[in-house]
């Protein structure tokens, strides 16, 4: 029987071989170093989220005290009174609309590009990635004039600009997905008599579903996190969660409200991220199907 040793697992060999094989000798110094570096990194990533957790359940926290002096939910009450719920709803709708538009568009473009039938493929891929290189405020300041003169409603303008900002992510994610996607399954289904729409819904989309979910998540994040576009195009009339946080954080003494609103802005994407991890596991068939062809992707071959 062949014993599989996963990469990164420590193999402790027999004592007799250790002395003659320096590679396998346990290294307490490097182990300590690894743990110290990992702990520093853990603190680095986690520390900034600590104030949110503490302040969101603090009613009063007088300056020198290390922990809140009075625990409670005043911050939640003020956040609700400040219109936290409608702002949350607006952010949610904005994120979902951007995801609903940018994901299919990105998937269609990636599909066409990966089949190699698009004229000027380098120019087209470059154009689709270009929004990453353009600061959002430049696009907004240039286009407000156009949108105003064309009498495009503010909300539509915001959605157009955010969809453009999300396209690089959805196109790239779906190109990776299609690189590992085997057209033979669709051709097979067609040969067996399935209609085009049948192939799309029963073969093609299920196979790329994990990629679609990742692309939709990234597009949702673009709409959910946006501040600049909503402020400039919306002119302050579309109050989303980041706008509310921004206006409270710019003032002083709002620490509890800021913490509560910030937490409510972090939790939904985190839940989606966890769901994304589960989604990948719940449909293992897609991975099994694409498994053997994955080595054809450019990333797999160094």
């Amino acid at each position, binding site marked *: 029987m062949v014993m599989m040793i996963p990469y990164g697992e420590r193999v402790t060999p027999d004592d007799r071989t250790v002395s003659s094989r320096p590679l396998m000798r346990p290294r307490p110094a490097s182990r300590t170093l690894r743990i110290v570096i*990992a702990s520093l990194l853990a603190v680095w990533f986690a520390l900034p989220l600590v104030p949110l957790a503490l302040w969101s359940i603090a009613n009063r926290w007088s300056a020198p005290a290390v922990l809140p002096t009075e625990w409670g939910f005043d911050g939640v009450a003020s956040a609700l009174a400040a219109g936290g719920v409608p702002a949350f709803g607006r952010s949610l709708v904005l994120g979902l609309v951007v995801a609903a538009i940018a994901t299919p568009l990105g998937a269609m473009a990636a599909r066409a590009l990966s089949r190699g039938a698009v004229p000027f493929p380098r120019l087209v891929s470059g154009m689709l990635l270009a929004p990453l290189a353009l600061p959002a405020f430049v696009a907004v300041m240039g286009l407000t004039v156009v949108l105003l003169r064309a009498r495009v409603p503010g909300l539509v303008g915001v959605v157009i600009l955010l969809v453009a900002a999300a396209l690089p992510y959805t196109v790239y994610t779906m190109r990776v997905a299609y690189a590992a996607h085997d057209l033979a399954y669709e051709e097979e289904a067609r040969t067996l008599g399935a209609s085009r729409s049948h192939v799309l819904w029963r073969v093609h989309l299920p196979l790329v579903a994990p990629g679609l979910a990742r692309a939709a998540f990234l597009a949702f994040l673009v709409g959910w996190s946006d501040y600049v576009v909503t402020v400039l195009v919306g002119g302050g009339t579309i109050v989303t969660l980041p706008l509310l946080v921004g206006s409270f954080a710019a003032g002083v003494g709002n620490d509890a409200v800021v913490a509560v609103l910030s937490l409510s802005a972090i939790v939904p994407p985190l839940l989606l991220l966890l769901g994304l991890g589960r989604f990948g596991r719940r449909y293992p068939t897609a991975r099994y199907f694409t498994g053997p062809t994955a080595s054809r992707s450019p990333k797999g071959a160094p």
Partner: protein
Amino acid sequence: MSVALVAPSVAIAAFVVIGGIGMSFVQSVGLLPLVGEPRFSFDAYLANSDELLLGLGLSLAIATASTAFSCVIGLTAAVVITQGRTTGRIVAALSALTIPVPHLIGAATIGLLLSDAGVLPRLFGFAGTDWPDFVGGAWWVAVVLEYTWKESAFVALVVASVLASRVARYDETAALLGASRARRLRHVVIPLATPAVIVSAIIIFVYTFGSYEVAWLLGRPYPEPLPVLAFRLFDSISLTSRPEAAAVAVVTTAVSLLVVAGGMALLRRTPLWR
């Protein structure tokens, strides 16, 4: 058929990118005034030339520092993540936790952590006046820290995914051939990670160079980075300020595009690029 599939995305991207840059330029040279006759001139660029140069330097400094720190910390995290074990899994989970946090929320929580009434001075027992001016101070520490915190997690994610798919076999081969850990890191892991690090660095630099909300929330009122300057001019009520804001936007775009071009040239010179 394929053209029809690509057309809608290309149309939206082109409208926003080409339209955005083009209309910013047209406004900045005075061809689209709010009132009066269009007249070609570079007045808008010269009107705030001192602030423009100061803002350019400041924005370049913030973006350079944030990009450099993010890449170093992110690469370290990616190496720790790729090694596996419990430590790697903890770092992977915590950096993934950071990814979906919006930048504005990151700025708000860094403010709660580092301001002179923040959590850290309380924790270390500093009185408000003894605590250094991280937020709103001369060195823009809180701004750079916020960018570095968010973007190092981004680098870790991108680089770790590249290393996971490539590095294991080469690393094992080098180890079997007798390479020490330091040599493997220097000659195997880092060269394999370089293209991914360069791509992330381009994205981070352009983002931090043109981002408004973090510098606005955690920075000081003067001098202003380019996006903050553009915002103030854009919202100002005087008639000449719109072209001046557009001029700042054009300068920001030009620098961003130069950085992208330079980064791509660097990327092509890496041995692993295709």
